[in-house]
């Protein structure tokens, strides 16, 4: 009897996970197609790029999960029951996984040897030939690389949206691992929950090894040298230059070693400076569009406040925002404290970095929200338990972005950095200051932007979850707004406006911090390194 129950549960969990995975594959397929179209268009048309890039930049950093209730309302409005809710979930996953793939395509085409574009013009390739023979293949390595990342992000949203909707009978997703796990955890069935997690992890590993690994192996050919040996990717060249500059400064204190290094290196890549200058000019242009969009959003908000006359509610939006802000940044600092030593160890101190990278990718594919139901079940009755739950989920959501971004950028570190470090026996504090931190800094900064975005996402979910009772917070606020009886009566009602106000507030705040803190920090680092 018991065995039969376990078997039944296993069957249910397997089908549910399969359903979840189907949604994922549909979303990934659509994402890749759209990304290719948009990325290629943005990279080949200067004017289109100037508009598309800042918009994508913004979408990439805002917590899209906040739109989920909206999306569900809209989709259910147009499509009947099951189709509508599934379309909404797939749509949500797409909006989470698509942005980095678009950027990948864009960057791949921008970094493509300019001879390829010359070639296409010289031999008069048709539009279709250009796409199929040049632009699409040249993008494939980045598409695959970014898809791996997108898969992990997508899983987060998949599970999150399933969990999100689990408690709400009005728009429940049927057949999804997230729904099942929430049910099991909240009903106290720890065995079933663990079994579910186990199956989930198995699916994650299988997808990584049976789907993405072969793809990665296949596109390796696309990156192999079809051009002369001397040509390395721009990023690697800039990076090589950076490392050389840093090392030069350090080595100048040891003249003999310095000369030896110079002799070995010969002439360093010419023309790199010019490229960097051009990149900076581009970002300035992007900056302008950024401010325009910010201003537009601000106008919408002011208009909203004016229209609705929401003095009291608006005040509570700001308090909620302040609470979430505190949690997010505290969680961010803790994430940094975890990510930095982990990255330094994996990049510099161990020989098994590729093993760790794969391990991290698999662990990171397990969305922190999947643990949420169980954490909630475990923390029942503890003082400040809710705050702790929120905090744990925040850290788990953010820390991987820091680690992956850092490791990704460090991958383009020239081999001779390690050689120089070993040859001259650079160790201890000097190694940390002159090499480790310097190598991981650019990646750490880009990772920080996405990490904080992810932590905001987590704040919406974690504060929103049943039985989590944080003092105040933006997720809580949204939850209460949705839960209020007047909500969902019509699309133009008071509550909807209130929600919109909250969302726009988050977006504005994130964008402000991006432009004021991260972009500046990044351009400063880029200047030193360039």
């Amino acid at each position: 009897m018991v065995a039969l129950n376990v078997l039944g549960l296993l069957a249910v969990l397997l089908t549910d996970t399969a359903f979840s995975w189907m949604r994922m594959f549909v979303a990934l397929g659509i994402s890749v197609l759209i990304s290719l179209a948009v990325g290629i268009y943005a990279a080949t048309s200067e004017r289109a790029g100037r508009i598309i890039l800042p918009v994508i930049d913004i979408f990439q950093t805002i917590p899209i999960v906040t739109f989920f209730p909206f999306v569900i309302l809209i989709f259910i409005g147009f499509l009947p029951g099951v189709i509508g809710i599934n379309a909404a979930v797939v749509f949500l996953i797409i909006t989470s996984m698509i942005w980095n793939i678009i950027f990948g395509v864009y960057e791949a085409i921008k970094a493509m040897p300019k001879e390829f574009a010359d070639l296409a013009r010289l031999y008069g390739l048709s539009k279709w030939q250009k796409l199929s023979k040049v632009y699409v293949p040249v993008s494939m390595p980045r598409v695959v690389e970014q898809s791996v990342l997108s898969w992990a992000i997508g899983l987060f949203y998949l599970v999150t949206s399933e969990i999100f909707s689990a408690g709400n009978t009005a728009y429940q997703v049927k057949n999804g691992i997230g729904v099942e796990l929430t049910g099991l955890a909240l009903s106290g069935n720890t065995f079933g929950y663990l079994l579910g997690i186990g199956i989930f992890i198995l699916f994650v590993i299988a997808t990584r090894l049976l789907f993405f690994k072969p793809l990665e192996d296949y596109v390796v050919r696309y990156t192999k040298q079809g051009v002369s040996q001397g040509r390395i990717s721009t990023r690697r060249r800039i990076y090589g230059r950076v490392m050389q500059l840093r090392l030069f400064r350090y080595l100048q204190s040891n003249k003999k070693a310095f000369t030896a290094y110079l002799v070995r290196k010969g002439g360093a890549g010419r023309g790199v400076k010019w490229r960097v200058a051009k990149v900076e000019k581009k970002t300035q242009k992007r900056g302008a569009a950024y401010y325009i969009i910010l201003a537009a959003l601000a106008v919408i908000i002011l208009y909203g406040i004016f229209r609705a006359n929401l003095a009291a509610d608006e005040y509570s939006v700001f308090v909620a925002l302040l609470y979430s802000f505190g949690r997010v940044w505290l969680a961010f600092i803790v994430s940094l404290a975890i990510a930095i030593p982990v990255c330094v160890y994996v990049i510099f101190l161990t020989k098994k970095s590729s093993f760790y990278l794969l391990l991290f990718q698999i662990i990171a594919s397990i969305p922190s929200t999947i643990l949420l139901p169980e954490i909630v079940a475990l923390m029942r009755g503890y003082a400040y338990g809710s705050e702790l739950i929120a905090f744990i989920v925040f850290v788990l959501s953010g820390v991987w972005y820091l680690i992956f971004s850092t490791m990704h950028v460090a991958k383009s570190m020239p081999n001779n950095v390690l050689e120089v470090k070993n040859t001259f026996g650079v160790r201890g504090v000097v190694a940390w200051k002159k090499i480790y931190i310097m190598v991981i800094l650019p990646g750490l900064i880009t990772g920080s932007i996405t990490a904080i975005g992810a932590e905001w996402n987590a704040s919406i979910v974690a504060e929103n979850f049943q039985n989590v009772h944080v003092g105040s917070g933006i997720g809580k606020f949204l939850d209460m707004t949705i839960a209020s009886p007047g909500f969902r009566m019509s699309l133009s009602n008071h509550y909807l406006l209130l929600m919109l106000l909250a969302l726009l507030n988050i977006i504005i705040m994130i964008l402000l911090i991006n432009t004021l803190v991260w972009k500046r920090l990044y351009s400063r680092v880029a200047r030193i390194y360039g």
Partner: protein
Amino acid sequence: MDSLMHIIEVRNVSFSFEGVAAKVIDNVSFHADRGEFVSVIGPSGCGKSTLLRIIAGLIRQERGKVIHLGDEIEGPVKGISFVFQDFALLPWLTNIENVKLGCSMLDISETERMRKALMELEDVGLSGFENSYPNVLSGGMKQRVGIARALVSDPDVLLMDEPFSSLDELTAEILRKDILYILKSKDLPVSSVIMITHNVEEAVELSDKIVILSHKPSRVKRVIGVDMKHPRNKHSRPFMKTVDEIYATLTK
């Protein structure tokens, strides 16, 4: 009339990069006639490659004209082909597909395309490598594919942008010897070749005419005719004399 017409005429061409006041190319004129192998030589970074891309119609000049058989060049045209310094083979296409790319502009059937590409690949000495990918080839072989791709459309002008400078000296030497033979053995011979180089010996070994450019901005310093029989002996007196003359002009 036709015999008087230059195959390629570069007339008073000037060029500067966007946002940079100083000219890169300043009032450059020269021409290539039927059967002529012209080398354009100058210090690195003097805008030689830009000049070649202007002739190919890939970059638009600021002032002046490029005339191909009486027609002004306004974009890439059928009769002009290009060999790249870094080969520029598409790594995801097989060698034969890379070569076939070269006749995209020709209005011929797929089988004809295939036949031409196979023949061209054989001419450059690479039969047997049709279905492998560029990454299994050595640098010299890659450039042979690049040359086959450029010649498969039977162009009347072949532009070469430092075609040997990405190769090691030994490989370059062999390919230099072969290229004249490959060009000559074609059924429809190439009328003119314009090659960019910074290697003086290479220019003297291959060319009928050498255009020497100055540095920043590029101006024509001097045009030297080379009238020696092929194959040329690098240690012969006229060869060494021409080389010395070019060095003297370049460093003046």
